[in-house]
């Protein structure tokens, strides 16, 4: 009896090729792809900004310090003005910058673990070379804290998840439960049926977006420094792109396992690589070139620049254009290949 039950489950599993792929093939492919992406980065490169009048000299000094053989980290030192360093911190391109004169000042947000780790490694390195008094200067002006980096990323992530899981999953469920079949067999135009899902998502993820903005402002004092209109436009564009992706993804899937796999295939790589929680500038340069054009990266970077760098519509015009272009392509491709019954 017990064995028969197990056999029943195993049979219904292996007799469905789609499920087998998403259960075995997909995790292997993901592991392979991510493994390749991360293992190609033999050691992590930490970008460190050097500011002050003598910055070039200091960069050269640091460069001459031999890296201990057992170290997993290498540093890239960049000479910057203080303003440039602040912008790079806001964008997550560097987590720490150094000013070296009589004493060495390390500027970073201690709540940012990457920054803190860079500080520890750098201080140890410097100690081997020349001992100077050093000081941590906490950077906590608005826009430079880790929370200022994180909240825009979470806003972007919220839009993606709301559209892809919300819209995509609902549409697939509509097909699986045969709810769609009856509806589209009326004079209702198919594009209106799909568009209604996009608009519903605008409303629902708009509410989520709004609540997170208010919450982060009240609790963490994370403030929008740029244009509200620009934020609204990038929100609409992001929604449109991810709704387009949701429609494309839901266009053929006819069971929940395949749907689950497909949605993970789209959301998982972007969640970890698009700079939501940590900067994608830590990825190898070749990967970074691709990652920066991921829809989630475009969205997160744009929201971040509106929040922290005071950007307006003109500054994020290109991401808006790309996101809407992608959304249109995804929507119409989905509409074209949609399986309605």
């Amino acid at each position, binding site marked *: 009896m017990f064995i028969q039950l197990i056999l029943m489950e195993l049979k219904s599993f292996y007799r469905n090729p789609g499920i087998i792929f998403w259960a075995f093939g997909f995790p292997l492919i993901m592991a392979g792809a991510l493994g390749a992406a991360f293992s190609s980065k033999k050691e992590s490169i930490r970008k460190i900004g050097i500011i002050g009048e003598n910055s070039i000299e200091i960069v050269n000094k640091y460069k001459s310090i031999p890296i201990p053989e057992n170290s997993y980290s290498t540093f890239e030192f960049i000479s910057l003005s203080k303003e440039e360093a602040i912008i790079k911190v806001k964008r997550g391109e560097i987590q720490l910058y150094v000013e070296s004169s009589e004493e060495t000042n390390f500027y970073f947000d201690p709540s940012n673990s990457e920054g803190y780790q860079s500080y520890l490694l750098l201080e140890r390195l410097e100690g081997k070379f020349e001992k100077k008094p050093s000081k941590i200067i906490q950077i906590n002006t608005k826009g430079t804290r880790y929370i200022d980096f994180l909240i825009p990323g979470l806003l972007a992530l919220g839009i993606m998840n709301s559209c892809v899981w919300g819209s995509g999953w609902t549409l697939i469920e509509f097909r699986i439960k045969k*709810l769609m079949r009856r*509806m589209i067999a009326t004079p*209702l135009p198919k594009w209106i049926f799909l568009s209604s899902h996009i608009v519903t998502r605008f409303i629902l993820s708009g509410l989520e977006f709004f609540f997170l903005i208010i919450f982060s402002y009240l609790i963490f004092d994370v403030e929008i420094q740029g244009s509200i209109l620009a934020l609204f436009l990038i929100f609409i564009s992001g929604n449109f792109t991810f709704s387009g992706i949701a429609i494309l993804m839901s266009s053929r899937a006819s069971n929940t396992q395949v749907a689950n796999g497909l949605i993970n295939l789209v959301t998982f790589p972007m969640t970890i690589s698009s700079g939501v929680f940590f900067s994608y500038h830590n990825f190898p340069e070749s990967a970074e070139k691709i990652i920066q054009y991921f829809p989630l990266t475009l969205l997160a970077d744009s929201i971040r620049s509106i929040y922290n760098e005071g950007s307006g519509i003109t500054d994020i015009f290109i991401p808006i254009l790309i996101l809407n272009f992608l959304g249109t392509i995804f929507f119409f491709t989905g509409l074209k290949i949609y399986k309605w019954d």
Partner: protein
Amino acid sequence: MINAIEINNIKKKFKDLTAVDGISHTIKEGEYVALLGPNGAGKTTLVEMLEGIQFPDEGEIQILGMKWDSHENEIRKVMGFSLQETKFIDKLTVDETMKLFFSFYSSVSKKSDEILDLVGLSLKKKSYVENLSGGQRQKLALAIALINNPKILILDEPTTGLDPGARREIWNILQELKKQSTTLILTTHYMEEAEQLCDRIVFLDKGKILASGSLSELLELNSLGEYVNFVLLKNDKIINWESLPGFRNIYWNEKDISGKIHVDDIISFLPLFLKIIKDNNLNVLSFECKKMTLDDLFLSMTGRSLGD
């Protein structure tokens, strides 16, 4: 007069299975037609092609003189249907579901309450779809099919799985609709449903039309006749039933040791039948005489029962 539906040599294959195999047929406006056949006969595939949910691999369908590829929207406006398995959103009420479907049609003269009244769902207006019984769901599917006051109504097994009371209620609604000269195409494997509701019956089997006509035409086509059904205790003698006057055919079931003899007229056949039983000393376990039904007719044409 334009025909309501014209089907011209349509074929539909699913991988190796030919579901519909070269069907041609015409249905006139205002006709009530039943598509009758066992499971897998191709009924649902045929009606889904009429409904524009599936499309034939070959052949052509015209609905009120219009084709699906050029007049989809116009056809949708004049057609109402319920699918074999119609599902609606569980968390909407009956009334909200009706409103949703009303919004898909631009100009409809009927009111939701009027239709709910007709199908007997007025009292369930505020109930969630998830709380409806099987019969009530079928009624809701029918109500939705009626929203646009359709000229052609296609119902795919509207009473399958319902208890006799609920089935009869649906029949009453459909009989009421007949007064409005709606064209109805109904698939069923209940012969009683076809007999009660429809002007014409089309027998389908293995994707082909076996016969079509009114009930009396079909029975007459097969020259009516009657049946003598019997079960024997054992089968140890060879009886020559064919030699009896009025004999037409026998369907012999070796496993059950039962026979079904198709005869011209029971009154004249019966004494001869009983004489053979007596002369051969046959031990009869059960015995009945009956008039020919659609199921018998289907059996006489295919050698299989409608319920198979």
